[in-house]
C-alpha cells in the first residue's frame, strides 16, 4: 500500500477548517475519488444494515405493545399497523388481565413474582458477599481449592439438581407453612456459585493497604467487612442485584417446577406460558399479559442500564 500518510500533510494547530471534499477532480488523483465513493457507499450500506437490525430488534416489542391497546375485535381481524390509518385504542385488555375473571387474571401472579424475586435477590446477595469475604480477605488452609470448587459448580446446569432438590422440600412441614421457601432457596442455591465468583473478583481489587490500615486501627473482621468492604463494593453489589432480580423475574424453569402449578405461588412467567399454551389465539389477553410481565424488567433495565452494562462486562452471565 502506498497511500501517503494524510496526517503528515495536514497542518497542525490552525484555525482553518479541514477542506471540504472536492468533487471537481483538480489535482486529486482518480484513485482517491474512487476511495471516497467506496467509503460513502460502505457508510450508506453500513447505516442501512444498522437501521435494519435496530428496527428488527424493536419493532416486534412495539407491535406487541400497540396490539395490547387495541380492541379484541380489531386484533382478530387486522394487523397492529392498522392503528396508523384507523386508530382505536382501549384499556379493556389490561382490565381483563389485571382485574378480570380468575382464569385470566394475572395480577395475583405479578404479586407472586415480586414475593419470589425480592428475597431471591437479597438472600443470595447477602450470603455471597459474606462468602466472598471468606475467600478473599480471610486466610485459611485449603481456601483456594474450595474457591475453585465453588467456581466449578457453575458448570452444573439447573436441570442436574432439579429433581433431588425438589424432593428435599416436598412434603416437609416448612414447605407447607412457607410455600415460597423452596423457590427462595432454590434460586439462592443456583445463584451462589456465580455470585461468589464475581463478588470475590471485585473484592480482590480492593487494595490490601485499606484493609491493613483498618486492622492496625484495631478494626476486627466484622468492622472491616461492614465499614470498608460494603461501601467499596456498592457498584458491584448493585449490578449483581439487578442481574439476579431480572434472572429470577424472567425464570421459568424453577418457577414451574417448584411451584407445582399452584396458583398461590406460581410466578408470572409460568402463568403466561400456560396462557400461551391454553389460549394461544386469544391475542388480546396474550399481548396485554406479556406486556405486564416485561414492564418491570424494562423499567429496571432502563433506569439502571449503567450497572447492567458494567455487570455484563464483568462476565456476570448465566444461562
Amino acid at each position: 500500500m502506498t497511500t501517503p500518510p494524510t496526517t503528515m500533510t495536514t497542518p497542525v494547530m490552525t484555525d482553518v477548517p479541514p477542506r471540504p471534499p472536492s468533487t471537481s477532480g483538480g489535482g486529486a488523483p482518480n484513485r482517491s475519488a474512487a476511495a471516497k465513493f467506496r467509503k460513502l457507499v460502505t457508510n450508506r450500506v453500513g447505516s442501512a444494515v444498522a437501521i435494519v437490525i435496530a428496527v428488527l430488534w424493536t419493532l416486534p416489542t412495539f407491535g406487541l405493545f400497540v396490539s395490547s391497546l387495541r380492541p379484541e375485535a380489531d386484533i382478530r381481524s387486522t394487523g397492529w399497523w392498522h392503528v396508523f390509518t384507523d386508530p382505536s385504542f382501549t384499556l379493556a385488555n389490561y382490565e381483563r388481565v389485571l382485574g378480570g375473571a380468575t382464569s385470566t387474571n394475572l395480577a395475583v401472579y405479578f404479586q407472586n413474582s415480586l414475593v419470589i424475586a425480592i428475597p431471591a435477590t437479597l438472600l443470595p446477595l447477602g450470603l455471597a458477599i459474606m462468602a466472598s469475604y471468606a475467600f478473599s480477605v480471610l486466610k485459611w488452609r485449603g481456601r483456594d481449592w474450595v474457591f475453585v470448587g465453588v467456581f466449578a459448580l457453575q458448570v452444573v446446569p439447573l436441570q442436574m439438581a432439579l429433581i433431588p432438590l425438589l424432593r428435599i422440600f416436598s412434603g416437609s412441614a416448612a414447605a407447607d407453612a412457607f410455600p415460597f421457601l423452596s423457590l427462595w432457596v432454590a434460586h439462592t442455591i443456583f445463584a451462589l456459585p456465580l455470585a461468589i465468583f464475581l463478588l470475590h473478583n471485585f473484592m480482590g481489587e480492593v487494595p490490601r493497604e485499606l484493609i491493613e490500615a483498618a486492622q492496625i486501627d484495631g478494626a476486627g473482621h466484622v468492622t472491616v467487612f461492614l465499614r470498608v468492604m460494603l461501601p467499596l463494593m456498592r457498584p458491584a453489589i448493585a449490578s449483581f442485584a439487578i442481574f439476579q432480580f431480572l434472572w429470577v423475574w424472567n425464570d421459568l424453569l424453577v418457577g414451574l417446577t417448584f411451584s407445582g402449578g399452584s396458583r398461590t405461588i406460581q410466578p408470572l412467567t409460568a402463568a403466561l406460558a400456560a396462557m400461551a399454551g391454553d389460549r394461544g389465539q386469544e391475542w388480546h389477553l396474550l399481548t396485554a399479559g406479556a406486556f405486564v410481565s416485561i414492564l418491570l424488567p424494562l423499567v429496571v433495565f432502563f433506569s439502571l442500564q449503567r450497572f447492567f452494562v458494567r455487570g455484563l462486562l464483568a462476565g456476570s452471565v448465566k444461562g
Partner: protein
Amino acid sequence: MSFLLYSKNGQLVLALVAFAAVFVLLLLIAKLAERATGRARGALMVAVFGGPALALLAVGLIYPAIRTGWMSFMNARSEVFVGWANYAHVFTDPGGVIALRNTLLWVVLAPLLATAIGLVYAVLIDRSRFESAAKSLLFLPMAISFVGAGIIWRFVYEYRGAAQEQTGLLNALIVWSGGEPVRFLQDSPLNTIFLIFVLVWTEAGFAMVVLSAAIKAVPQDIIDAARLDGVSSWQMFWRVTVPSIRPSLVVVLTTISIATLKIFDITRTMTGAEFETQVLANEMYDWSFVFGDNGVGSAMAVIIFLLVIPLVIYNVRQMATNRAVRG
C-alpha cells in the same frame, strides 16, 4: 401474626426480617469470635462468613447433582438399577433423536448468528453520534423473559389462511409483496430455525455490549498503523478488529452456547415442542415432570451437563488468557 403467616405480603415481610436477622446474628457471632484466640478464631471466622453459602451449595447443588447422576441409571421411579438403558433410550427413541438433532442446530446456529449480528452492529455504530441510544435498542430484549420473547415472536410469526387478512407482521409483508403466507412455526424443519432466531434476538445485545467494549480496547497505535498502510474499512475489520478481539469473541460464543443448551422456555411457549421442534432441555422437563420418568429425565440432564463441560472449560481458559493479555 396471621398477617405475617397467612398472606403473601406477610410472608415476604417475614422472610426479609428473618433473613436480616440471620445476617445480624452471623455478624454478632463473628464479633464475639473476634475475642477468641488462636486457631479457633480463624476457623470460627471462616465458618461464619463462608459456612452458610458452602453448606447450601453442598446440600442444594452437589448432593442433588450426584443423586441425579445416580438416578440416570435407575428406572422411572428410581427403584431398580437399569444400567445404560435410559441413555440408550435417549439415543434411539425417535423423539429423542429429533431433540438431539434440534439441540445441535440450536447450539451451532444461535451463538454464531447472535455473535455475528452483535459484532456487525457494534462495529457499525462505534463512535457514531447515536451510539448509546443505538445500543439500548439492541439490548432491550435482554431484559425480556424468554416467555415474553416467545409471545412477542409468535405474534410476528402468526399465520392465517391465504383467504384471510394476515395479522402477523412477517406474513403480512410476504403477502403484501405478492407471496403466499408461510406457516412459520408449523412446517418442519424450518420452524426450528425461526425459533432459534428468537434466542438470537435476545442474545445479540449481550454479544454487542461485550464486543463493543473489546473493540474500544483495541490499541489505537495498531489502528493508526493499519491506516498508515492504507487499509480499507473491510480489511480493517477482518485483519485488525477481528483478530484483536478474538478472545472476547470466543467468550461470547461459548457463553451463548452454554445458555443455548439449557434453553427450554422458547420452545415451550412458541410451539409446545410440537411440529418436531423438541429440544433436549425441554424433553428433560417433559420426561421428569410430565411423564414422571426420573430415569430418562435424569439421563437427559446428565447429557446436558456433559455437553456443557467442554464449553465451560474452553470459556474459562479463554477468560484467563484475556486477563493475562490485558494484564
